């Protein structure tokens, strides 16, 4: 467990519901952005729930259709010598520009390939945002942005940085929609995270976010972070939930006796949702659990930071959105379907999971 406190000096996101405040507000009202669309984009296919930034098609263009959204988001990032010697940037994604490769392979022009590798895609972003060369690129499926936060914190703790920027982006394409459709968890159903029902369903969503981390105490403090990789199966967890417990328990020890709420991963799949809800109910039975992917869709490698930004905004406003898209019965009694009064809490645990049984969690507290 990483327990050198770092200050979360800034943290904002962009989703299909808008900027951080707009997203938090919409979720609090129980609103979502998922719409049924063909998983193959212009090529058609079965309808699946996707949440795209307004006006952005699922099919990729060149230059990428998501660049304006990145510019808008990063316009709110505090100015700094990002990418300079003591101001590293950690870029995370699970998709990068893979939508361009799909477009090329399905008959598009050569220009679609230009940003198809992570390296070329990050070079494009770096040029757009004017960063220096001190950039580390991380890709670990749906815990990617969590790893960026951990590494940024470690650079600060080791004295290698004065401040650090974590930037994450994942924009949908037929590539990733087709992949989750093939796994049969992206289907015509809308996600109902943590609901005990017959069939599980997820939705996918566009998402990007950034965080500025600084050493020491601040108004918002990342008190601890944990990681764990089960390496049990690519898409299944051990039935005893041991991987969830391994990641959660160190943070739960810090959280016991405090006023803590939990933002879970909660994609809408059944086994993972049940294991996660039960693990949190065992570890922190007094803490309510919410999940937001029923409204946002799963923003993939970026979900950890996107939802951390929303969690921070929820605590700032004193209103915590409930588990959008879900109704009783739920997998555990601590699942909160409706919104919560944020004034009753001082800290939040935000958790994410990924392929391979990867787990990550962060404890964020308000000073």
């Amino acid at each position: 467990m990483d327990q050198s406190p770092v200050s979360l000096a800034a943290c904002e996101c962009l989703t299909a519901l808008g900027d951080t405040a707009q997203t938090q507000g919409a979720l609090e009202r129980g609103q979502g952005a998922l719409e049924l669309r063909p998983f193959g984009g212009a090529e058609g296919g079965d309808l699946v729930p996707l949440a795209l930034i307004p006006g952005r098609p699922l099919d990729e263009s060149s230059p990428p259709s998501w660049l304006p959204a990145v510019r808008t988001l990063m316009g709110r990032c505090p100015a700094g010598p990002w990418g300079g010697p003591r101001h590293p940037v950690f870029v995370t994604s699970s998709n990068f520009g893979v939508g361009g490769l799909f477009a090329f392979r399905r008959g598009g022009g050569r220009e679609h390939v230009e940003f198809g590798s992570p390296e070329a895609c990050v070079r494009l972003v770096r040029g757009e945002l004017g960063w220096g060369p001190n950039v580390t690129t991380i890709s670990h499926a749906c815990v990617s942005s969590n790893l960026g936060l951990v590494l940024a914190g470690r650079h600060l703790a080791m004295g290698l940085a004065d401040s650090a920027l974590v930037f994450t982006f994942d924009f949908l394409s037929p590539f990733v929609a087709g992949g989750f459709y093939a796994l049969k968890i992206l289907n015509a159903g809308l996600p109902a995270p943590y609901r005990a029902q017959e069939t599980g369903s997820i939705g996918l969503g566009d998402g990007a976010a950034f965080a500025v981390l600084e050493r020491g105490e601040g108004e918002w403090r990342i008190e601890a972070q944990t990681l764990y990789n089960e390496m049990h199966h690519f898409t299944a967890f051990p039935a005893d939930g041991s991987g969830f417990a391994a990641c959660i328990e160190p943070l739960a020890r810090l959280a016991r006796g405090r006023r803590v709420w939990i933002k879970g991963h909660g994609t809408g799949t059944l086994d993972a949702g049940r294991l996660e809800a039960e693990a949190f109910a065992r570890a922190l039975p007094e803490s309510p659990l919410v999940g937001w992917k029923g409204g946002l869709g799963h923003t993939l490698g970026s979900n950890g930071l996107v939802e951390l930004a929303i969690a921070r905004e929820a605590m700032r406003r004193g209103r915590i959105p409930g588990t959008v898209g879900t109704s009783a019965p739920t997998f555990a009694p601590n699942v909160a379907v409706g919104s919560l009064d944020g004034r009753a809490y001082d800290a939040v645990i935000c958790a994410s999971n990924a392929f391979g049984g990867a787990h990550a969690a962060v404890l964020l507290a308000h000073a």
Partner: protein
Amino acid sequence: MLEGYLTQVATESALAEEPAAVSARLRSVFSAGAGRRATVLGLLIGKVLEDRERWPTDAIVYASRFGETRALSAFLDTFPHPSPTLFQTSVHPSAVQQVMIERRRPVPEYFPLAGGPDLAARALVTAFACPAEAVILCGGDERGSWMAEAGVASDQGFAFAALLRRSAGPAPLARLRLTPAEGPAAGGLAFPDWFALLHGRRAFGGPVSPDWRLELEWLRPAGP
């Protein structure tokens, strides 16, 4: 300054070898079923991490410029009926996951890095940032198909694994020192060149990125 020791090093060179030949040669690294499903990069990583008892898995830092490009391109060609297996294996960090899932070896910390002009330097700093006593630093690339011709996949196959420790222990293979560059440094160390240093047990002293300088000194010949 960041200083440590490499106490184990393994490399696998398949620079110009046809991917099909690599698969046939290395398939036995995995069990029969897993070997058939494994990617070329998964097999290369499996080979350098053979002798599993020698590689503690408290922390793994994995570096690849391009990742699973053959699975990725094959997945693209399965549309409009996308393959779930190819989708899973096309994700960037799957090479190490293929190996560790087959061995059922939990890994508390796994940091997969993806590309960048200073990938070797970033991976080294990431490894030094892991608190574990021993950190596996591994990586590589596989030869791509049409994606290599388009510049979004490697034209070479190779893999490496090194065990980085803070203390020398009884028989260190090499000593590593990373020092911040004094002012912006010209040049750097390309990812295949980092592999070549390990593969050829060659010493190095110079900039590996605009902000870091590496000293790599071999202390004894490679051995078991």
